[in-house]
């Protein structure tokens, strides 16, 4: 909302600079985005001039050489406007004047003739859009009169961002009332206090009729009729106001409707009465599916919830949003039907969104105006139509109104004001602030009974709304104390899961991985690039109804895609190696694929689940991806690129930090190398995958090779024992270490052998670790030797050699049981 300062001051002059006022408005809840200047930055150098002579330029067809009296004598000005003529009273910029935009006007030679100034058109002063001809002023004005006395120049304009609750501030008068409230400067008599005289011959009921078929959607419809209307340009002051407020001047009737809307926040619409057959209007909902042409020349299809204003021939306008083209006011209009109506805001908002059509009118109606505003607008517009268009107002007003909303009186408790704000505002101040804002106030000791005015009816509905009014006018910046809530018995802390999650992030960071935060969005083609089969739940992401782009139209079902995106981007930028991780959610429509008993991660952290289950499953995942070596190359050489075991080592190190036991078994994932992929279990729970990324997937992301894992945080943290370990005495009874090498068939996985040995060794066998793998001819085909380090210990005694030998025997027996032999 652009508020020209002089217009504002007509109703309330705060006696301070626009900048000072803007600061005060900002601190009391009216956001002033900026203070600009409409027209030239300063009024100096702009005067009224009288054209003495206007002769054809000797060397230019389109230029005229004029002599102009500017009060300080005659000067020569070359002018390009076709309508300049001797005897005109014109607006002149003298050399040295600053033009809008800031540049200084200089003396100039135009085709050989010196020009000492410029005769101005409306757009050059930013008081209108007309550039076709110069401004012709009232001839009664004396030459040399400062132009600022005729036209507002260097007009400060407050650009206000009106919050949706304050529809009253979509009118200059509403802003003036606000200024009155916060500064105490007097407020002028309401501009609608005086109506126009009704001097028309016929009563309005003879000229027009209105039927409202949908009173719930159209609580009030008022109409007045005007005859003898003379259409023409608006007077300069009106054009200037509109231009400064950001509205294009069109003709006097349309300008008046816009002016009154900008003043009162109540939109109006003028029909050419002669184009409304029989003057009969009907307000109804559209049938649904019909098309109509709006004033902006666009053909629009209406649905059955759209409210329309119809005449006998069809739709004359979309209610509250935009009029139709046919019955609009034109140069030939002589009779006007002025509609000032009240509409259901929710319906207007809905229709405006459905049509993708927002207008000055709809942006006000959608916030719900009070029906009382209609007659204010009728009164001001009627006066202006009579004064500026020579119109005669037909006696009477058509007023089709549903039951008006009941008056609203609220009890404002003094104790509540102080109790909510933590700031005391005395009775007299509260009363003063509210009355200045237009509320009616009656004492109800020790409280107040406050009646809400029409302008604030839908905004102020509760006691707390009044408290806000009192607080902001009182001045939070000036009076609000700074205190802290009493601590009471509350304790702030992170939950164990939250602490462990930090540990995961820190752990991966310490293992050399940079943290990435990827987009939750992806494109629906990503599962395909990851070779995920169509029937896999991960190939069926949650899709957005209104994405910004196809690339961001689906919610990711795996972290891998965004990690690959990050890797590809970084490699394209010249990174030679990369180790990244992300800790974040993926989004699944149904239960997660790792659902076998695994509780979905408590995003709804324990105590704060709420009553309605979340609409989607959002497992929290830990994903990592490495491209190239895990350490950077140096002058001493380069490390091998990370492979399956390189990354598995990282994951195992991470798990050790958490005290979580992970198990790995061969598995298939569509996006992984089929021979170098494992399913990961944390304790008994399936937790995710680790593996080398399939070469075809790498190719889709322009990567040569990569290795990654993606682990469900719930499963990993569920298996974590960190913080819950119990002491075991390892000092008193030293352990016994033994190394054995066993030859087993290739098909026996290392983990199987370890499990077998672990079982055979009993509880005294504390550790089994593979420390070498050997294959060679002397072992025979399809056989391998695994070297195991065994650690035996007991918590209550030192094991004897005989005990250990016995356990070792059991182990060897077990190994032989699966076709293995002890080597060497």
């Amino acid at each position, binding site marked *: 909302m652009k508020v020209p300062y002089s217009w504002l001051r007509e109703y309330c002059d705060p006696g301070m600079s626009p900048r000072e006022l803007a600061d005060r408005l900002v601190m009391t809840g009216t*956001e002033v985005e900026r203070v600009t200047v409409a027209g030239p930055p300063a009024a100096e150098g702009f005067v009224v001039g009288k054209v003495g002579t206007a002769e054809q330029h000797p060397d230019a067809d389109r230029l005229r050489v004029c002599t102009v009296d500017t009060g300080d004598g005659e000067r020569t000005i070359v002018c390009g406007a076709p309508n300049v003529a001797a005897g005109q009273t014109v607006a002149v910029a003298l050399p040295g004047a600053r033009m809008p935009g800031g540049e200084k006007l200089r003396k100039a030679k135009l085709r050989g003739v010196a020009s000492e100034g410029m005769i101005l058109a409306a757009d050059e002063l930013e008081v209108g859009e007309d550039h076709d001809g110069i401004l012709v002023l009232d001839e009664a004005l004396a030459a040399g009169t400062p132009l600022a006395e005729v036209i507002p120049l260097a007009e400060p304009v407050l650009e206000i961002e009106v919050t949706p609750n304050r529809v009253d501030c979509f009118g200059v008068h509403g802003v003036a009332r606000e200024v009155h409230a916060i500064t105490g400067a007097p407020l002028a008599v309401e501009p609608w206090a005086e109506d126009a005289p009704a001097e028309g011959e016929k009563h309005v009921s003879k000229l027009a009729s209105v039927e409202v078929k949908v009173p719930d959607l159209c609580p009030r419809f008022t109409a007045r009729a005007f005859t003898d209307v003379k259409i023409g340009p608006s007077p300069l002051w009106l054009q200037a106001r509109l231009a400064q407020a950001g509205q294009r001047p069109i003709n006097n009737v349309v300008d008046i409707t816009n002016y009154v809307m900008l003043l009162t926040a109540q939109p109006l619409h003028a029909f050419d009465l002669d184009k409304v057959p029989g003057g009969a209007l009907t307000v109804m909902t559209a049938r649904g599916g019909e098309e109509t042409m709006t004033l902006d020349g666009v053909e629009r299809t209406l649905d059955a919830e759209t409210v329309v204003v119809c005449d006998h021939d069809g739709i004359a306008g979309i209610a509250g949003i935009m009029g139709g083209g046919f019955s609009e006011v034109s140069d030939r209009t002589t009779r006007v039907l002025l509609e000032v109506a009240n509409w259901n805001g929710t319906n207007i908002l809905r229709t405006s969104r459905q049509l993708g059509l927002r207008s000055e009118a709809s942006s006000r109606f959608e916030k719900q105006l009070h029906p009382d505003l209609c007659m204010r607008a009728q009164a001001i517009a009627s006066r202006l139509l009579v004064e500026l268009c020579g119109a005669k107002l037909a006696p009477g007003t058509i007023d089709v109104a549903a039951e008006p909303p009941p008056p609203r009186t609220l009890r404002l408790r003094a104790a509540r004001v102080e109790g909510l704000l933590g700031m005391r505002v005395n009775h007299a101040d509260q009363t003063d602030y509210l009355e200045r804002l237009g509320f009616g106030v009656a004492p109800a000791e020790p409280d107040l009974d406050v009646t809400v005015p029409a302008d604030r009816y839908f905004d102020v509905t509760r006691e*707390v709304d009044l408290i806000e009014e009192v607080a902001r006018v009182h001045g939070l910046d000036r009076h609000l104390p700074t205190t802290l809530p009493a601590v009471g018995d509350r304790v702030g802390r992170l939950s164990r899961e939250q602490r462990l999650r930090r540990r995961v*992030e820190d752990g991966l960071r310490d293992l050399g991985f940079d943290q*990435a935060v990827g987009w939750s969005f992806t494109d629906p083609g990503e599962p395909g690039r990851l070779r995920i089969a169509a029937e896999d739940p991960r190939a069926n992401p*949650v899709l957005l109804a209104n994405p910004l782009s196809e690339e961001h139209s689906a919610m990711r079902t795996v972290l891998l895609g965004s990690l690959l995106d990050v890797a590809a981007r970084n490699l394209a930028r010249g990174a030679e190696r990369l180790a990244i991780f992300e800790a974040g959610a993926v989004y699944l429509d149904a239960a997660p694929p790792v659902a076998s008993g695994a509780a979905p991660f408590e995003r709804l952290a324990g105590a*704060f689940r*709420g009553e309605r289950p*979340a609409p*989607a499953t959002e497992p929290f995942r830990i994903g990592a991806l490495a491209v190239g070596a895990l350490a950077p190359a140096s002058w001493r050489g380069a490390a091998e690129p990370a492979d399956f075991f390189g990354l598995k080592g990282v994951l195992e190190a991470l798990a050790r930090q958490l005290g979580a036991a992970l198990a790995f078994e061969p598995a298939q994932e569509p996006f992984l190398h089929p021979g170098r992929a494992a399913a990961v279990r944390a304790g008994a729970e399936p937790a995710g995958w680790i593996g080398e990324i399939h070469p075809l997937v790498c190719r889709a992301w322009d990567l040569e090779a990569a290795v990654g894992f993606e682990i469900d945080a719930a499963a990993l943290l569920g298996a974590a024992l960190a913080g819950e370990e119990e002491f075991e005495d390892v000092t008193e009874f030293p352990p016994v270490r033994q190394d054995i090498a066993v030859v087993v068939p290739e098909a026996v996985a290392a983990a199987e052998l370890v499990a077998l040995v672990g079982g055979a060794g009993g509880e005294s066998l504390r550790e089994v670790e593979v420390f070498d793998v050997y294959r060679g001819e002397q072992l025979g085909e399809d056989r391998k030797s695994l070297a195991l380090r065994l650690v035996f210990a007991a918590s209550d005694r030192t094991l004897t050699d005989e005990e250990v030998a016995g356990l070792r025997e059991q182990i060897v027996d077990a190994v032989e049981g699966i076709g293995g032999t002890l080597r060497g």
Partner: protein
Amino acid sequence: MLERIEAIRAAASAAIGGAGSTAELEELRVRYLGRKAELTTILRGIAELPTEERGKVGGAANRARKELEALLEQTAERLDAAELEERLLADRVDVTLPGAPPRPVGHAHLIARTTRLIEDVMVGLGYVVAEGPEIEHDYYNFTALNHPPGHPARMLQDTFYVQSHPEVLLRTHTSPMQVRAMETQPPPIFVIVPGKVYRRDSDATHSPMFHQMEGLAIAPGLTLADLQGTLLELCRALFGERREVRLRPHFFPFTEPSVEVDVSCFQCEGTGELPGGGRCNLCKGQGWIEILGAGMVDVNVLGFVEAHGYDPEKVQGFAFGIGIERVAMLRHGVPDLRRFFDNDVRMLEQFS
């Protein structure tokens, strides 16, 4: 014979003392104490000497051998040390070459780091941390936060909706967790909610995905002044101990009164001017930087959870929402919101 022994001892002693290397020393050991050495031969022949000579010669020869052995050992130590030193001196490296890099340490993302910073401040003020779903019901995101269906306030935030469910959306703020939290726990409640949020908007200062931290405090007697004090503590922790905050009345549907909160500019100390003159670019000469939105929880919002113990006549409180990226941008001078999700490792690695 005794003279001979003395002559050998003297000669050997001189030779050993003058040995220049361990190799030479070994040679001398063989020459004077080896199996064919004269002294060894003498010692071996003692038994054949006349009885009266045996004692004297034997004693002298043994003394000579022991002395020489001791001298050899001593000299060997000296020579070893000298030779080691020489070898070490020859074994030089160019100490100006770069060190061998250890396995590198990774970097926390600025968003994660900033989130933790705020969490830690608020935990210290007695709050617990909750998270919630990002795909959320319209009910929690709007309706229960006093944005009735068809209300223009819904237009303030352009919302992504889910295709298959018209009533399901990507949360536009972390505020839905206010309602979930209050449904779950009766007052008093002091909770913060970090997380991703989504709005249909994209430019240098708007990203369709960004992060917020919600704060909610409900208890009997909490006031707007308490909100100001809480935010002052938070802003000082984030932007320095000399910061001040100011509350500007504003409008949010789910708080009343609502405020926008400014923090005094930490670059120009709130003066709007830089020390060297000229307008402060950070606060644009205002001296204040808008940092978050907040307010007293609207009685209508409490009305939605009244059955859970939130009678607006008995409890009241405040809520605030702070943009994590906004804080990170201010603290670290990041110019464009979208950079956070670009994940350029050259940027990630600037922040340890």
